């Protein structure tokens, strides 16, 4: 039975328990489920071609033994195996392949096979998110067939494109615009059309990347004021929508009051995905009148977590992946000791307030085991012995990758490549993710040019920004999308005084980390020559 039928035949509490059951369990049950499913995954993975290549037919009797002996993995370990898309290598037959851009600047893709079991779990958990997004309390939700959805996320083969397909197996939802029409449209065009349709007949659910929805919502006043019914008949609007629109426009004209989407729309559920959502959530709530529910999904890990109805931290789905965590100390040890393999801890071993890098093994025949996704999470609470799950908070990508708004992943190699291609000759550079005064993230490139380069041509911040931006867009399609979709250019360039990096090295006897160095280190770099003077 799918959600639509269940809604007809079962009580709300039964529906809630069917999909949101994980909110009723404690950490012990959570760990039991984790271990049982990991045992299954371990068995089928070890027997698969990929498992044999990694471990050469070794067998393990327990999950803990597997954790001890199986090394941690990264995408590079799987790249050649997965690029062939050979189903014989996989633990279970892939129903579809999801892909995303791999290490932005390189322009290659990452592939992840999705088995039937993975998709079923994804589907159930996605419906749980749908229910929770409309819920303020246990057993209370408001979802029905025919609800209208404004879906501002990338289509298949990206992971975000799975949602409409999987929702469709469970319940009929009306997408604005409908999925077929949307497929032939660009991202901006699709959103624009979606809003246009929503203005006519209201919208029940909004689902998108936090940064994109924020960007669209910000321009809502001008969008609404400029949009007129000249292309559509007044009769195509629902009277209530027409009244709300006219009323809002009138107020705006009369008092200059800003129009928020909440003045027009009456959302039941609001879901956002992607990174940096914490910078947008408060304002999105202010604009839409409902606090967005943050989901955590990815190409490799599938849908792994959601906020609960209290919106105070996310819980992880126990049946999606086996979760391990690397503490910051272990990460430090790893970066300082060549060949050191960091130890991992499990959910029931997390310390409140600590930040961890997540390691996942995808259940139900997934290809990735002990896989470092590259995300950092903070443990907000870990109530051992209580009937609730640990609450986590997404912090950011790991420090050697910069992600802006869930669109792009800037790595050290990527920046080197851009600078080389652009012909900019430099002594050194660092790049970091910083927050603007309004609390929004941007990329900040600190560049020390070669003396001859700076003296032989006109170089200023704007020119350098333009050059870097052009190559960044050229090489990293996602960065281009970021600019196009959100309408902002998140790149800032600062030119450092010549000799800064040398001075830094001689004073501190070490080189600076190029990606996301500590704030203090950046300050030291900026002031190094001043201090010398």
């Amino acid at each position: 039975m799918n959600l639509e039928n269940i809604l007809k035949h079962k009580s709300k509490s039964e529906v809630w328990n069917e999909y949101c059951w994980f909110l009723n369990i404690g950490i012990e049950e959570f760990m039991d489920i984790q271990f049982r499913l990991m045992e299954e995954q371990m068995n089928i993975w070890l027997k698969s071609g990929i498992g044999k290549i990694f471990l050469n037919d070794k067998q393990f009797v327990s999950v803990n033994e597997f954790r001890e002996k199986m090394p941690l993995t990264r995408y590079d370990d799987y790249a050649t195996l997965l690029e062939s898309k050979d189903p014989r290598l996989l633990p279970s037959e892939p129903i579809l392949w999801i892909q995303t851009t791999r290490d932005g600047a390189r322009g290659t893709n990452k592939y992840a096979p999705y088995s039937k079991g993975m998709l079923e779990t994804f589907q159930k958990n996605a419906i749980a998110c749908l229910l929770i997004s409309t819920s303020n309390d246990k057993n209370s939700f408001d979802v029905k067939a025919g609800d209208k959805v404004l879906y501002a996320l990338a289509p298949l083969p990206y992971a975000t494109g799975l949602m409409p397909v999987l929702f469709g197996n469970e319940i009929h939802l009306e997408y604005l615009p409908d999925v077929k029409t949307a497929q032939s449209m660009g991202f901006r065009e699709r959103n624009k059309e979606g809003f246009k349709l929503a203005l006519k007949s209201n919208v029940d659910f909004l689902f998108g990347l936090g940064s994109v929805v924020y960007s669209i919502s910000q321009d809502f006043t001008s969008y609404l004021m400029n949009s007129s019914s000249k292309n559509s008949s007044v009769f195509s609007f629902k009277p209530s929508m027409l009244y709300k629109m006219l009323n809002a426009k009138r107020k705006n004209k009369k008092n200059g009051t800003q129009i928020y989407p909440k003045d027009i729309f009456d959302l039941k559920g609001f879901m956002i995905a992607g990174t940096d959502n914490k910078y947008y959530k408060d304002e999105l709530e202010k604009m839409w009148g409902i606090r967005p529910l943050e989901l955590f999904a990815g190409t490799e890990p599938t849908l792994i977590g959601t906020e609960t109805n209290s919106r105070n931290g996310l819980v992880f789905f126990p049946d999606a992946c086996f979760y391990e965590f690397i503490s910051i100390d272990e990460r430090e040890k790893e970066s300082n000791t060549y060949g050191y393999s960091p130890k991992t801890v499990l959910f029931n071993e997390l310390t409140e307030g600590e930040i961890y890098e997540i390691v996942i093994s995808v259940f139900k025949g997934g290809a990735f085991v002990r896989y470092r996704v590259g995300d950092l999470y903070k443990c907000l609470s870990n109530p051992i012995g209580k009937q609730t799950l640990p609450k986590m908070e997404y912090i950011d990508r790991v420090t050697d990758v910069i992600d802006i708004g869930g669109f792009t992943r800037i790595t050290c190699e990527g920046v080197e490549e851009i600078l080389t291609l652009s012909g900019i000759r430099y002594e050194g550079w660092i790049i970091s993710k910083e927050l603007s005064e309004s609390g929004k993230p941007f990329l900040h490139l600190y560049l020390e040019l070669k003396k001859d380069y700076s003296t032989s041509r006109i170089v200023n911040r704007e020119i350098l920004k333009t050059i870097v931006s052009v190559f960044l867009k050229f090489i990293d399609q996602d960065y281009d999308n970021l600019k196009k979709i959100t309408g902002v250019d998140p790149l800032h360039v600062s030119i450092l005084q010549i000799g800064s990096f040398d001075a830094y090295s001689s004073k501190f006897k070490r080189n600076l980390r190029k990606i996301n160095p500590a704030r203090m280190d950046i300050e030291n770099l900026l002031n190094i020559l001043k201090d010398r003077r």
Partner: protein
Amino acid sequence: MSIQEYISSFAMLFYLFILLLYVKSEKNQLLNSFFLMIGSLFVWTSGSFLMRGLANPGYIFWFHISLLGLFLSIISIYNFLMDYVGIKKTIFEMILMGILILLPLVNIEDGWFIKSPVMVNDHGNIIMIYEDISELILIPICLGLLLALSGMIRIGKKYKEDKKFISQSKPIFLGIAFFVLGNLLVVLPIFKSFPIDILFGLVNAIILIYALIRKDVLNFTFIASDANGYFVSVLLSIIIANRYIGRHIIETINTENLQSQLTMLLVIFLSSLIFIQLIWKKIVIPVVKHEAIYFNECLNEFSAKVAYNLNTNSIIHEVIEVFSQLEFIELVSFGKRVTSTNYYEIIESSKFTLNNKTIMINNGTQEFLGANHGLVGIHELMNLILYKSAWEEEKLQLRTLQMDYIAGINYTQFLLFIKVIQGKKFKIRDLEFLNSILSIADVSLRNAVMYEKVYLESRIDELTGIYNRKMFYEKYDEAFISQEISTTGLVLINIDDFKLFNQLYGVQNGDSILKEIAEIIRIETENKGMVFRYSGKEFIILLPSLDVYSSKQIVEQIKSKMNKLGLYSSDFQHRTITASIGISVYPLGASSKNELLQNVEMAVHQVKKNGKNGVMVFDTYEKGITEDLDYSKVYENYSATVCALTAAIDAKDHYTFNHSNNVAEYAVKLAKEIKLNNVVVEIVRQASLLHDIGKISIPENILNKPGALTDSEYEIMKRHVEASIEIIRHLPDLDYLIPAVIGHHERYDGKGYPRKISGENIPLTARILCICDAYDAMKSKRVYKEEISNEKIISIIKKESGRHFDPILVEAFINVLETSVTEFD
């Protein structure tokens, strides 16, 4: 009686009867509400009936009772509805209900909103006319509507939360609709003299009873009790008698035939009492309780069958039998956990399609089923949180199995699966019955499993983990029960110089070697036969349906693996492990199971004597010898010992010495006559020489007593057989003679001694000795008897064929005598 009276009195009796059931029925909130409603309907109906019947203390009194009953009925129906759909009443509703109860009481004083009706005689019919209805009647009507509205809103809300509850509550709404409709229709003139309100109230009650029975809340099987039977019989008999009085007695009360009328009345009363009792016992009880009776009988029968049953397969079979007889069950299967795995093999099913299918049930599900004794719906199981961690394989297999219920038995060592016929549903009592069966089966299976475990443990060798000698004999007997056509191979493996091995490398190493050998044999004979530890250093392999060639092949494999044992020890190099192995196959090489066993023992002896480390296929008869051993020398070493012993006999008792020599001579001839192989002939010869060696221990006065022996003397004389065995047993490596010697006084008909065995259970060599021993004894002249002539002896031997002697041997022996008579003389 008018139609009005009939309907009212029937409704009253019906309500009264239902109310009486309250005494014996279960008590819960819903049933309390139900009986309260029936009570209210009773008050209303009886008030109305008695009002119309102008019963004492007067129709006005009964009008007020009826009015109170009507208000109570409305409130109690509302109360019941709310309890049925599971909605708690609000304070507002409680207050409304309270006011509605008070209103008829307030009305008593001066007819506040409705005055008492006026009685009108309409052509002999008494009609009640409500002339004075105040506009205040709107108050109770509005309050009633308010209550109904509140109920509708709350039911509407509940419907939003849980849509399925409406479909479950349809009969309730229908019943209430009848009640409301009846009370609306009653104001129509057409129903002036027809109690439509009472009739529809009754319909309402019947529908609600149906709804409760369907929901399994109300169970009326207890109605069919003897006490109720008496009550109903007496009540109906009184009514019948009353009708008789009304029709006949009242008219003739002053006449002279009063006595006969009263007698008739008594006859009618008693006859109806007996008749109704009979109907109650023969029809009502079986109809109402037929399911309960059937279940009870099944339960008793099942319990009797399995209570003392210690065979798991048989108990499982009984469970499947009982379940598959039930009309709502389509398929029932029993799965048994494959040791140390999470897989269950379907071992028996009501339909063969599922047999031998394997299904995976993970630890989590097992834990749940182990903790929840009884049947669990598969869908219920799939909705459990623990099922979220079930493996995909498990989920797929459970789905493919298409069963509806599952139960764990004996801590989930067994699983029971049930498929219900499509469209049928388990009622609570069905489930209770099935669970009762399962509880009994659980206990019985637990005992049976424990017994089988102990049974098996007592048949397993502790050191090697393979079956022991005890088990061998059982399986050996089983193998011969139906071996008319097929062959049975037997292999005896005797480890060479194992005592020496223990002395050289220690017992611990010896034990490990034995374990390894056992494992080698187990692996090599897997799916072909069974291996047993026959004695300390001997393993025996039973190979049902295997021929000589296949048996030899298995043995060669075992031998080659055994020879490699110990060679690669990390600490030191062991000496090579070798074994003397004997093979014999029934019926090719042996004519009975005993012979088969003797053959392999004999073969091992021969291999040992021939230098050990060899395999020999032993055939009792000459043509079957297959190994290239040098038989001429096999027993050469032992001839000296045998000679020494015969010399000892000679010294003590010269007759016995001669007798033994004679017997040996005859026996060799007889053995050759029946084409026994040289080895057996030699054994027969040596056994003949030593068969009476035990006579050394018999006092001479008994041995050479001239005349018949007394009973006690005869008993002493009989002991010479055991004495012979005692002597031979202690001689090195002469134990191969024991079967012949110990059985030479056994009779073919089982009346001999010492073991009283019969027919082919007596070793062939012993049967040979027996006839030759008897022949020489008869032929010899002794102090206590004269020599008997050959002809006489032959006739005695013939006479004793099949009694004392083996008939085949008799025939052969006579041939021998006929051809060698002069020689013997």
